[in-house]
């Protein structure tokens, strides 16, 4: 069975991990999901008062 030939084992192992870690993972990180659409909240949010003066 040619899969049991140990000659290319190391290079295949290294190439697999390099592809997974350096190619596919960064690509998948660029797939950002957006929030699902929701209705507007029924009440407007209260403005929080702040302690310092206007000027």
């Amino acid at each position, binding site marked *: 069975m*040619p899969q049991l030939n140990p000659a290319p084992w190391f290079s295949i*192992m290294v190439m*697999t991990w390099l592809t997974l870690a350096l*190619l*596919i*993972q960064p*690509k998948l*990180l660029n*797939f950002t999901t*957006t929030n699902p659409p929701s209705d507007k909240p029924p009440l407007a949010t209260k403005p929080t008062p702040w302690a310092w003066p206007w000027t």
Partner: protein
Amino acid sequence: MNLSFFDQFSSPSLLGIPLILLSLLFPALLFPSPGNRWVNSRLSTIQLWLLHLITKQLMIPLNKNGHKWALMLTSLMVMLLTINLLGLLPYTFTPTTQLSMNMALAFPLWLATLLTGLRNKPSASLAHLLPEGTPTPLIPALILIETTSLLIRPLALGVRLTANLTAGHLLIQLISTASVALAPILPAVSILTMAILLLLTILEVAVAMIQAYVFVLLLSLYLQENI
């Protein structure tokens, strides 16, 4: 030289350059990074939907710590799915038929789940070696059995994927050879064989997707026990 049916699985190389690198690099080309827009291309939208589905399904049974594994498991799933499905095209090489690749993926990831469990909650993770409700006289035997089953997990993970894909490709080659060989002699039987080949190819598409899913699912199960 005369080729045997197994020679389709020997890692191809041309002038010393391993061509398996091409088969490994190609799946990344099929997932173009979506641009920085609100609405992307249709391909990116579909792929985003699929990735979201996969990640959601994998993360549901995991606790908050397990969500750190989201990228690893999702990228593994995407890579295995794409490689398996691309291997069903004619004249392509399937890297996942190589035991080296599957063991390279299975062994470190399984070991990572095991070491995570032993490091963060050692008693709980060792407690998995004895199922609840075991009768007392059976305890030593069962601990040995459970330890063996634990240690054989990476081997099983790797060999399961290798064997399923190798067997599938081998069957496809055998039946298509039979169909071609029978064509001048018994054309009707040859056409029946081609019908069987069609059904087998549909089965292999299913197997390709299921085996990728099973690999990642089992890893997530091993992670659930240990995180």
